[in-house]
């Protein structure tokens, strides 16, 4: 089975392991991911902060290319890219004037008939039905499922039932044999795009998240957003300085955690690419009882 795929810039750079693990899990379950040809950046927070029309046109170019390619569905694993593509599609479909203007900007036709899938929707639709036969191991650890902002909000785009206390990620982790913990910071912001421009604020916000996960005894934090990952993983030295505390909980992408339960090797899932060592999460794994 084939599903369209929009990687976004982070999955080619700082979050290669997210892409790697998504491909590894999909391949295991017999799903082929077809990349949108010549896709471009979604514009991220820079575009919507500085130029409204650009923030709609940039994602629209990629969506129009996906239409041209004949893709009816695309999975967008990056939460930030998903938010921008979905917001652009919604704005264009709700307003004819925006549609006409955007078509002129991108010089392509736009029908908006491509269905956009978050990573949860993709897992639920394509991986869940067959996952049980491939899950051979049990993660056997307490996980803090961290959604951040853009997987939970705004709810008309993310389509989650409960944006204040979503449970979609917990369902995936239970399937992988982990015990999701109940905690207070699962939909709080990590500081997102301030990673470089206001690292101090990222350390403060991400520090609170990490501290709560640690106090509640999490063995690992599970994320599904490259920005959340880089703020909690790459920015750990800054967080430690802020908290004046050494917290060494590893941060795994949801597809890495699921892949581990499927017996896929740590290297294939890109676990060696993290800054906070992931050995602690891997060492908990046990064979699943028959």
């Amino acid at each position: 089975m084939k599903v369209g795929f929009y990687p976004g810039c982070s999955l080619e750079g700082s979050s290669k392991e997210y892409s790697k693990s998504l491909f590894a899990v999909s391949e295991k379950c017999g799903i082929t991911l077809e990349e949108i040809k010549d896709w471009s950046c979604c514009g991220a927070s820079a575009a919507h902060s500085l130029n409204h029309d650009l923030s709609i046109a940039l994602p629209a170019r990629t969506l129009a290319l996906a239409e041209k390619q004949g893709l009816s569905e695309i999975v967008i694993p990056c939460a930030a890219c998903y938010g921008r593509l979905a917001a652009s599609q919604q704005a264009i479909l709700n307003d004819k004037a925006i549609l006409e203007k955007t078509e002129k900007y991108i010089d392509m036709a736009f029908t908006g008939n491509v269905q956009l899938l978050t990573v949860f929707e993709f897992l639920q639709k394509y991986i869940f039905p067959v996952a049980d036969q491939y899950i051979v191991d049990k993660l056997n650890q307490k996980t803090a499922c961290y959604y951040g902002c853009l997987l939970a909000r705004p709810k008309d785009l993310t389509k989650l039932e409960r944006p204040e206390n979503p449970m979609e990620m917990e369902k995936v982790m239970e399937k992988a044999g982990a015990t999701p913990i109940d905690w207070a910071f699962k939909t709080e912001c990590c500081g997102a795009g301030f990673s470089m421009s206001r690292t101090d604020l990222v350390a403060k916000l991400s520090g609170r998240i990490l501290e709560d996960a640690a106090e509640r005894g999490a063995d690992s934090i599970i994320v599904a957003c490259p920005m959340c990952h880089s703020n909690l993983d790459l920015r750990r030295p800054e967080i430690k300085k802020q908290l004046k505390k050494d917290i060494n909980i590893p941060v795994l992408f949801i597809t890495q955690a699921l892949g581990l339960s499927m017996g896929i090797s740590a290297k294939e899932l890109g676990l060696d690419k993290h800054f906070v060592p992931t050995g602690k999460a891997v060492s908990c794994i046990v064979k699943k009882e028959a």
Partner: protein
Amino acid sequence: MIICSIQLIFFCIKRQLNRFNIEIVHESIETKPGNSLKSRLEESVGVIVSHCYQCGKCTAGCPLNEDMDIKPNQVLRMLQAELPGYEDKLLSSLSIWLCLACDTCYSRCPQEVKLSQVMDFLRQESVRQNKVNPKAKDILSFHKAFLETIEKNGKLNEVWLTLNYKLKTLNMIQDVQKAPSMFFKGKLNPIPSRIQHVKEMEKIFQRISENEGGDK
């Protein structure tokens, strides 16, 4: 009977006065120049600021409220009241740049006021009118470096973005120690990856800036 008539007369006068008052208020809004910051914002974002009844949930949930000079609910209050000088105060505030667009405010707002889009509008207006708060310079430089990188390459390359940002802010030391380990983990691509049709990207940027020039 007489008392009743007097009461009725009073009631009628009061009603007339009320109506008069309402008309006066209404007229004052109508006669205000249609290009105030508030009216442009309402038209552009599709938000009606009077919908906010100041419950304060936005500020309570905002992850950066303690760092903001004007709290989220106050931003809306200032737009509602339109007191003299409010435009400059809002456009030169740090708050509009600190908003992370996490949408906690919008998702908890009982009146569904899209505050993150209000912030977007105010940021753009602040740049246009050259009123950006000096403390927000680095944040703006980052956004600009980001857009320049994708205009030239079609997609982001972290090395390019970082160098461009450093040139803009002259903040040369920050994060230098992270580069080697990121490189060895294969997370940095020193050669910028580009989309095949880079020209298309440049044209999108060009058409938008031409259109904006026409709008003014």
